[in-house]
């Protein structure tokens, strides 16, 4: 692309473009492989086949990329909130007028194909966050900025939950990476991580172990405070808060969650071992990846992914196909490619003189990393099964266009 219009896109970052194209091509090849059947005739643009449709979407994504590159950066910055508001309204409307697919009411049907607007809400939110953090604030505004920031990411997350699309809702948590970079209190993040640990402990063992752990920590802390009353009171308050959290988790898990949700959590935490039941998907996914071996079975020679053992094999579980056919070598290469893209994004962000561009770049890196970590993590059983796509690779127009827009806005910002 950088060659086609050298004057206009002179400063476009070649590395990012190369990574982008590489990922899209890997995605298409994997989708093709998962549908490949030597006994069937091959037509590149066969719209009955996922690879045929994906090719159409890739072409559309390329057009979209050019359009984004043509937009004036000033406009992007100026209308960031407007874009955000528009997309929030759009995803909210989906809750009411959307179509139900796989239990999530997250789709708008236009003719014969469906769009998942939440994919576009990601870059819209990133724009709003970038605008919010880059704009000058009063002292008072500074004090409440974190609350506002959480509201900005909370709105789409809540709407996603209303759409029963838990995966997408969680994606908005990825902005916390940016918040940390922008000075959000590390202790609070640490507390959050500690809360996750307590959560796991409560469910895997029972709430008494979690409380016991907390109590031991309180006693140890007591010893180190050396009679500082203020600190003792503070510690007891924190302790009480966490104990309350543990009981809340216990209550929510047993009383609020539905059984299939409970099972998913159980599966990921290793509590249930019914290979044909709740963890069927995970099991099949692990078999596909695990059977790939060091060098893989070779392109088009996967059996697990081709024979429908792996569910959602070209969307959420597309990594299985790569793991099976390209093996450990392929997985390593793919992860390296993503890390190269993300690190490049961070490096470029830090170079930006315009804070809007810098913050937006971080948002892009955070979102892509979150998808990467959750998506691959779930296929190898390290993260609960949460239905989110692998950026640029998973089958689907909405996600490809969403990520293309997300990335190319940054490429454009960086170009200036």
């Amino acid at each position, binding site marked *: 692309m950088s060659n086609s219009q050298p004057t206009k896109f002179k400063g476009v970052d070649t590395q990012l473009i190369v990574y982008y194209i590489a990922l899209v091509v890997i995605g298409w090849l994997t989708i093709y492989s998962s549908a490949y059947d030597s006994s069937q005739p091959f037509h590149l643009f066969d719209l009955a086949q996922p690879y045929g449709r994906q090719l159409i979407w890739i072409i559309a994504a390329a057009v979209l990329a050019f359009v984004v590159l043509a937009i004036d950066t000033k406009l992007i910055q100026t209308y960031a909130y407007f874009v955000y508001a528009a997309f929030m309204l759009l995803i909210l409307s989906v809750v009411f007028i959307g179509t139900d697919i796989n239990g999530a009411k997250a789709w708008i049907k236009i003719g014969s194909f469906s769009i998942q607007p939440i994919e576009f809400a990601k870059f819209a939110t990133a724009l709003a966050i970038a605008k919010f953090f880059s704009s000058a604030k009063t002292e008072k505004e500074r004090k409440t900025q974190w609350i506002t920031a959480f509201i900005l990411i909370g709105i789409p997350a809540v709407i996603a939950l209303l759409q029963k699309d838990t995966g997408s809702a969680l994606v908005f948590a990825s902005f916390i990476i940016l918040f940390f970079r922008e000075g959000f209190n590390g202790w609070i993040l640490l507390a959050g991580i500690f809360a996750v640990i307590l959560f796991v402990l409560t469910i895997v063992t029972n709430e008494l172990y979690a409380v016991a752990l907390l109590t031991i920590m309180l006693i140890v802390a007591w010893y180190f405070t050396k009679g500082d009353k203020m600190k003792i009171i503070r510690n007891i308050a924190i302790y009480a808060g966490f104990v309350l959290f543990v009981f809340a988790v216990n209550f929510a898990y047993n009383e609020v969650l539905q059984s299939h949700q409970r099972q998913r959590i159980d599966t990921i935490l290793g509590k249930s071992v019914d290979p044909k039941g709740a963890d069927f998907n995970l099991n099949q996914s692990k078999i*596909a*990846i695990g*059977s790939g071996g060091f060098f893989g079975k070779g392109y088009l020679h996967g059996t697990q992914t081709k024979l429908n053992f792996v569910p959602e094999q070209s969307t959420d579980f597309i990594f299985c196909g790569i793991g099976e056919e390209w093996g450990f070598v392929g997985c390593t290469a793919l992860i390296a490619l993503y890390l190269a893209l993300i690190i490049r994004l961070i490096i470029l962000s830090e170079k930006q003189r315009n804070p809007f561009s810098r913050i937006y770049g971080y948002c892009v890196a955070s979102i892509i990393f979150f998808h990467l970590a959750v998506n691959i993590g779930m296929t190898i059983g390290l993260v609960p099964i949460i239905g989110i796509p692998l950026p640029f690779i998973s089958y689907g127009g909405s996600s490809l266009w969403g990520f293309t827009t997300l990335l190319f806005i940054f490429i454009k910002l960086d170009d200036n």
Partner: protein
Amino acid sequence: MNPLKEQRRIIIIALMVALMGIYLIRLFSMQVIDRKYKDLARNNAIREVVQQPPRGLIYDRNDSLLVYNEAAYDLMVIPKKVKEFDTTDLCNILEITKEELIQRLEKARKYSPLLPYIFAQQIGKEDYGYLQEKLYKFPGFYVQPRTLRAYPEPIAAHILGYIGEVSENQLKEDSYYQMGDYIGISGIEKAYEEELRGVKGKKMVLVDVHNREHGSYRNGEFDVPAEPGSNLWCTIDMQLQRYGEKLMANKKGSIVAIEPSTGEILCIVSSPSYDPNLLVGKNRSRNYAKLLRDTVNVPLYNRALKAIYPPGSTFKLANGLIAQQEGVINRYTYYSCGGGYNLGNHIVKCHSHAGSDLVDAVRCSCNAYFCRAFYNTVSNPKYKSVRDGYQAWKDHINQLGIGQKFNTDLPYESKGVIPTVEDLDREYRGHWHGNSIVSMGIGQGQVACTPIQMANLIAVIANRGYYYKPHVVKAIGSKDNPNTRYNQRMNSGIEPQYFEPIIDGMKLVMTSGTGRFAKIDDIEMAGKTGTAQNPHGRDHSVFACFGPVDQPQIAVFVLVENGGWGASVAAPIATLIAEYYINREVKRTDLEKRMMELNTR
């Protein structure tokens, strides 16, 4: 840049790289270290479909088909893999009720949740086609092609034998077999199981999560085609066999006919028999049970190999040979008779005649002559004691093929009874002499033989001194590939010149002796009648013969239970067999008709 933010940027990148590092460690352990997933994937996607080879066909000695194959299909089920399916659909295809379906599934589950179980047996070709199309709807079910044996004619059931599902013991012993496979259980099917069964092949088929097949794995790179079983050519003459079975209709007994120069069995009849088609297909077990329950006719019992009878006068031939070989008698040895052999307190009766030499003794079947010859054989002064003398006699008898198994391709033969010295010691509490056991000299008393052993004795006489072990398979795989397992010439231990007086006597039997009414006009035959005493009823009619005398083509032994005199039933049947085989037509049609209609049951 703000140092805090610089530090945090490094933290962020470090954490990201660290997390991906954890992922890679996890991937490495899953993909490279842990073998589990590879095995699981194999089971998941590749189904090894066993390719059953067609079982070898069986021809007679003249290339007439005796056994061939018909395809049939069993519906197998693996209970553990059964998921919800449309029961009405399956019920309709199999034409069973829902209750029956549930019952069968229950049975299968009880048998084993993981092993294949025959859900429906031998589905016809049309039903099979229909079922195959819908099979994907019934997870856990698959169709297993089977070979069913079929017989153009309902003859030779005993010798051909039958096949049936492998037993659990056989499964344990031989890893070749899998549950539900067929194996030869008796007859040629058992003896030549390894040749007939061929070699199983395998096909790697890709199967998706819905149990649907998606063609072969890697274009059949790992497939192994099945090797069909070898065809067999047996020594049986199908027409002669059919003829023999007709002659034995409504009689109990056996016919064994051997080609003396080769030991090939030309026909082997055990009557009553059964239609081999009964032990094929769906009704096999029911029919089998029925045949097994028939304790009057015992149709599954192969009398020709298993039944032991006192051989009667035909045994005198063996004793005549041994006595000569031992130097006790010669052609001209004359023994007076006078109505029997006097044992002091008991007389072994004979018909009234003055006495005879060896040839005449054979002709008139003189009891006194053969008692004395036997007595003199075992009491021969060249041996220290009667024990040694008896042992020498027994060695000869065994060398003639009597009292031991041939162990050829005829499974389940009896050994017969020729008592050992120890047996006799036990029986007579250590005190016995030549006269104690003298009835053995005329084929009575302690001796008992199977029809095939007696037929072999006649073959030895026809050959003037040697034999080949009787067997039923001529060639394996192709007609040019003779079965060489039994081509070892067995020496009878009797010198050729000693056969002549015996044969001369047997010739006279046919012309002026007990067999004269069974004479064949244009073939010179040598024969010997026998009447085996039967404590349970009418005597068994026995006849042994071979012909033509100069160039023997066939040696026949016939025993008809409760047939009475040897001359009355067994002799006509034996000579008809010989006539039919040698001339390919029978001129004595009246006799033939009478024999076929005769009912001695």
